[in-house]
């Protein structure tokens, strides 16, 4: 398995890397605390809270080290600024939940030159294993998440005509993968028709609610709504409720945030593909520790954490 240490292209990078390694193993021996940093994609996304919990469970609880959690607030510029600040802080390792798949590449080269191991989680970065920028890429099966929702919809339709509205967010690449999975899966089923596939005028709950309300007003034959994440799905639930149309309309999301679970439990939302951000964080953090402790990673460079389809039948397990 390639790791950051073994792939240093320049002599100086190798040197620092070596120093770093010596330092960190020395630290481990003397029992001195190490510092592991992470940048989460957006702290106000419940998904990230779970990610942070998973990360802390490894760094703080398991290894007793110091965890630094920074927030990219969904902005690529803030993301690289946060990574810069982690470099200044001279952290021993980084778990990166990037909000963009390309933006951090350039700065990761600087991180690599400093010899700090990085593991990518949740967002598949546009880099190859050979470049050696990250130890591993641990991601959700976003496409499969969309597929799972589509399959449930097809099953519930049972061959009847069904009209779906799809709420997307082109700026969100993970979200678009879910949409792709969904759209590809229903493509073969003529009974399921897409009424409209569009996105809110901005990335805010208010705009998502407004778009859903207008759908409800515009079409009197909506049978299902699929949104690229739960926040939008829940907004759609509210729009349907306000128009007294929630009964008989299926609403799906992706993510499995706690309030989506509650909503499913209450019989409002139909289902969601639950991601496991905590698992992603745990797996990535473990990879960083494996390298820090001088070991090699013994699994594939790409790690897929499955999503779990949740609906009324199994929601109680996740409440």
């Amino acid at each position, binding site marked *: 398995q390639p790791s950051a240490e073994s792939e240093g292209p320049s002599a100086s990078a190798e040197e620092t890397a070596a120093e770093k390694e010596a330092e960190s193993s020395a630290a481990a021996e003397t029992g001195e605390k190490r510092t592991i940093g992470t940048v989460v994609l957006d702290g106000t996304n419940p998904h990230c*809270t779970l990610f942070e919990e998973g990360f802390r469970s490894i760094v703080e609880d398991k290894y007793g080290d110091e965890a630094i959690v920074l927030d990219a607030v969904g902005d690529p510029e803030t993301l690289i600024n946060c990574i810069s600040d982690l470099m200044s802080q001279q952290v021993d390792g980084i778990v990166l939940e990037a909000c963009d798949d390309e933006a951090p590449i350039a700065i990761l080269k600087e991180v690599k030159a400093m010899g700090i191991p990085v593991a990518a989680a949740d967002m598949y970065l546009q880099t190859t294993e050979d470049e050696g920028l990250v130890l591993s890429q641990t991601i959700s099966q976003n496409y499969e998440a969309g597929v799972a929702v589509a399959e449930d919809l097809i099953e519930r339709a049972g061959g009847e005509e069904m009209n779906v509205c799809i709420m997307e967010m082109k700026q969100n690449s993970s979200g678009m993968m879910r949409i792709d999975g969904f759209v590809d899966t229903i493509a073969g089923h003529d009974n399921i028709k897409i009424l409209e596939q569009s996105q809110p005028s901005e990335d805010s*709950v208010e705009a998502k609610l*407004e778009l859903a309300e*207008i759908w409800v007003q515009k079409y009197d034959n909506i049978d299902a709504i699929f949104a690229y994440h739960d926040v939008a799905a829940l907004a759609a639930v509210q729009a349907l409720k*306000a128009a007294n149309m929630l009964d008989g309309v299926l609403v799906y999301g992706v993510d499995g945030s706690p*309030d989506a679970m509650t909503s499913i439990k209450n019989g409002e939302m139909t289902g969601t593909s639950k991601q496991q951000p905590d698992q992603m964080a745990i797996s990535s953090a473990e990879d960083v520790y494996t390298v820090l402790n001088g070991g090699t990673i013994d699994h594939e460079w790409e790690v897929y954490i499955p999503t779990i389809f949740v609906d009324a039948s199994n929601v109680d397990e996740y409440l």
Partner: protein
Amino acid sequence: MNQITTGKSEFNNFKVRFMGALKTNGGVILAFIIVFVIASIVSSKFLTFNNQMIILRTISTTALCAFAMTFVVLTSGIDLSVGSFMSLAGCLTTILISWYAVPSFLAILVSIGVGLAFGAANGLIITKMNMPPFIATLATMNIMRGISYTITGGKPVSVTADSLFENIGAGFLGQVPIAVIYVVIAFVFLWMLLNRTRFGRHIYAVGGNLTAAKYSGINTDKTIFLAYVLTGVFSAFGGIILVSRLNSGQPTIGEGAELDAIAACIVGGTSLSGGSGTLTGTLIGAVLMGVISNILNLVGVNAFVQLIVKGLIIIFSVYINTIRKPVKRAKSAES
């Protein structure tokens, strides 16, 4: 320059006032009519009662913020923190209800009280610390947003226990969404406040000429202070309604709400340099923005193109407003 004697002036005065009102709001009314007519032609769904109600409900939070913002802008101030008030008050309400089982009504009162307190903080920072409103409210915008994220942990707070709460914002009174009723009540109340009380006169006086207001013995600090308290209270209330409509305390709500509210004021003819503008103008401005957004979504215009169209329509409607005023900027600077 014609002489008006008191005797025959009744009718004349009415005419002066009516023409004045039309001159002030004429631009936005014209822009509104044009956009409205185009919208009716473009989509058959547009003119339905339900759709009109949806428009009004959609703009309800913006309108509440914009009404109060009008007071602030009239004093030649600005309040960037309205969105954070929405978030803080909205989340606090749901936290109180869901986590501490506080009755909805009390929770709302407390949250509005917190809005009032932070509004007062804005007012004090601006009047007593002599800080420019832009930067003072930019700071409190960050602070309140930070508090809102901290208390919620950044996660939405679900409200399941209390269906009463949901009705507060999402309910209906007959056919009319309750949020629309609030807007109407708030409008009437604030209109009276602005046009029929001394405080309202003082708002205009302070914004028109701060020195003159001081020399006339007006407590200018108090007037400005109260304007920020108003935005605090009304945007807090707006946030609570929104949260109730979403049925969960979303800490991210209200981002960019300040721009929407200010845009409604300016499109409605209120001048950012203070002293001139009307609440009616702001109302029409807010509805106009809502209509634009609604028709673009109804027609299914691509979200990205929507941004472009929205920008163009803003320029268009404010331009109509500007050219209808005979005195141009260059001239008004002279006088």
